[in-house]
């Protein structure tokens, strides 16, 4: 059989992580925008805009972890050990955020400020350490081989370096932009105006972050430079930076329009997708950069195949359901109906 199960699984996990970013990015962003909107009723509105759609995000994260465990146990073991502290901080941030989200509505009036703070703190922590983890991962993970198999060779604080920190800030900016453009799409009046004036500087910051990562990674890693700047691969990848420029132009133009709707949000999502794809191109086919490929980290074909059967049956149903949910939800918006 010529089916490359490892490649299929790499694509599934790639999509799964992006699904997580799509589902969870903008509501983490809204958490980070909270400090700039002190009014309680405006905060209610902000949270209500995501209430119907933020669902499922944590299960996507659990599914991502489990799928990595099943399909690439070696990568799961090494990467998660290497990123121990940032991942633990991220998980704790998410626990806080998830609970705060729910209990803010259930809290008595004098308790609500506690959950506002938990929501802000959890969102900030989760977003920053997701970015730090991503940065440390892309930057490369030191591996040493031992009799029991390859093992993480670095220390507990290896992620505490300029590049991962910059990525942490970059992801915070990206999620804030998503949250901001989402609110432009979902709200009106004062709140929308404030978000419109916030979106432009955030967009420029995101462009700066993308440029910084695009310059930094090829300089730091000759393999990444070779991937992007030698023929014939270069021809394939030229569209990525071109599309980024197109995305930025679209985003800025849609922000300048009279009645901005979903345009800025979709343009932001597009930009983030391109940045994410760019990183994947730089890393491919490694799953523990820069040394272990997806094939070297793969679980036995009997494991990957067994898991694939269930995933291929259930995942489309879940995706279809999510699309349906968004579709109906969008229809409501056109009718001008609120959710609460």
């Amino acid at each position, binding site marked *: 059989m010529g089916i490359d199960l490892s490649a299929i699984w790499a694509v599934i996990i790639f999509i799964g992580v992006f699904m997580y970013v799509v589902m969870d990015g903008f509501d983490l962003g809204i958490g980070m925008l909270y400090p700039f909107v002190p009014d309680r009723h405006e905060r209610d509105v902000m949270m209500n805009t995501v209430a119907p759609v933020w669902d499922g995000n944590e299960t996507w994260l659990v599914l991502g972890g489990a799928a990595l465990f099943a399909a690439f146990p070696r990568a799961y*073991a090494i990467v998660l050990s290497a990123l121990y502290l940032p991942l633990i901080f991220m998980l704790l941030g998410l626990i806080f955020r998830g609970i705060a989200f729910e209990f803010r509505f259930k809290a008595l009036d004098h308790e609500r400020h506690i959950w506002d703070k938990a929501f802000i703190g959890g969102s900030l922590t989760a977003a920053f350490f997701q970015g730090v983890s991503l940065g440390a991962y892309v930057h490369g993970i030191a591996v040493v081989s031992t009799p029991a198999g390859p093992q993480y060779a670095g220390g*507990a604080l290896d992620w505490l370096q300029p590049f991962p920190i910059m990525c942490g800030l970059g992801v915070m900016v990206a999620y804030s932009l998503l949250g901001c453009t989402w609110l432009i799409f979902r709200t009106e009046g004062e709140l929308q105006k404030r978000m419109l004036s916030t979106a432009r500087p955030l967009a420029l910051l995101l462009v700066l972050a993308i440029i910084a990562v695009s310059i930094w990674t090829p300089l730091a890693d000759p393999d990444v430079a070779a991937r992007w700047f030698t023929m014939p691969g270069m021809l394939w990848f030229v569209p990525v930076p071109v599309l980024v420029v197109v995305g930025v132009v679209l985003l800025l133009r849609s922000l300048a329009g009279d009645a901005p709707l979903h345009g800025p949000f979709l343009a932001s999502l597009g930009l983030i997708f391109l940045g994410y794809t760019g990183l994947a191109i730089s890393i491919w086919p490694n799953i523990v950069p820069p040394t272990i490929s997806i094939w070297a980290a793969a679980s036995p074909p009997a494991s990957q195949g067994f898991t694939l059967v269930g995933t291929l049956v259930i995942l489309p149903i879940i995706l279809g359901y999510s699309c349906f949910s968004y579709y109906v939800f969008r229809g409501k918006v056109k009718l001008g109906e609120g959710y609460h």
Partner: protein
Amino acid sequence: MLGFTALDLARIQFGFTVSFHIIFPALSIGLASYLAVLELCWLRTKREVYRDLYHFWLKIFAVNFGIGVVSGIVLAYQFGTNWSFFSQFAGGITGPLLTYEVLTAFFLEAGFLGVMLFGWNRVGPALHCFASVMVAIGTLISTTWILASNSFMQTPQGYAIENGVLVPADWLEVIFNPSFPYRLLHMSVGAFLATAMVVAAVGAWHLLRKNDTPAVRTMFSMAMWMLLVTAPLQALLGDAHGINTLEHQPAKIAGVEGHWQNQGDEPLPLIVFAIPDMENETNHFQIAIPRMGSWILTHTWGGQIKGLKDFPKEDRPNATIIFFTFRAMVGLGMAMIALALWAAWQRRRHAMYSSPWLLRVTTVMGPAGLIAILAGWYTTEIGRQPWVVYGLLRTKDAVSAHAVGTLALSLGLFILVYAFVFGVAITYIFRLMRSGPARFDPGHAATGGPGQAHTPSRPLSAAPDQISTNGSAQ
């Protein structure tokens, strides 16, 4: 740090997070089935108490399910963050089993759970009931995958070892390994028993407070019937599970019994109390009943089992701990059987709803089933030591190489965050329980699903937003 090694801290952290987690899924399993039964009763009899009880427990189920999901995220990552050599070694087998569990849970959340929580006014009664039944079945399927994975680690089969890692040779053998059926039944019935105990306690508390409504009586009565069936059944299943463990993991049973060595042909005593001393290979303060040990373990009056001294020192589990966790589980089990019989006797005397002592004891014993589940898990997991995959991989060879300081920091943070976050959640569940079953008003059914404020994957939002401190839901 305080004399703990990195391995100790990693084990404490895993034990802490998984102990916190297990309570919520165990209640979810039991409540899902209870809700399905309540709705079937409502459809058959159209008696309003069943509908009112359904909606009362549905809110508690929703919050409980939500907390289970949140506390579950950590577990999906801990195998990699803390047990990297285990993940590399066994990932080809446990990874797929856990992925199937997540897929099952995800599938449920995306579909049937939403209908169950928010669909009362949106779909027909039969379809709604179907959703409840599917959620109940789904929680049991999830349990099946988790127990398959855990049982494989206890009694592995159907594998090969290639390049130093486990490779699945036959998935059916992997899943249906020797201890799987016993473990699955013991855990599922344990979840039903623990839930019945919680339901009974809530009913008893309301009866004590003179909140003597037909709904409260019905739930108390149903829970006591359930207790009468599951408590003795659980004892039988536990016995069968123990015999199975004796066959496949004799060192665990020797540890649980505090049995060091056979004395000639002498039958085994049942050691009721002792403090097993692992250093000096002896028991202190031993109180024993002659011959009973042989009868319980081998179902003969003269049978013998291997003692701890028959195993090399480095292959023995810590008998000092599992001796007591096992007795805590069995003791609570016996207490629940006694309670069920007492309630049945009071029922015959028509005094079940009014006997203050029965109601008081039932209230106090509310968490007994959940504590028994924890004690049982400690017994089986600590009893598996020093192995993580029995006979194949030692726990000390499975752990990631983190420094003590790193682990102390993460463990401390987990304890802080869990204490706060789950403390609030549990307080909220208590508030819901205190509010008691009310007459259900269809006009105030939770709405949700696509396009609504509440969507299926936010089970917590099926519960009322504010509950005032005097206990009534607003």
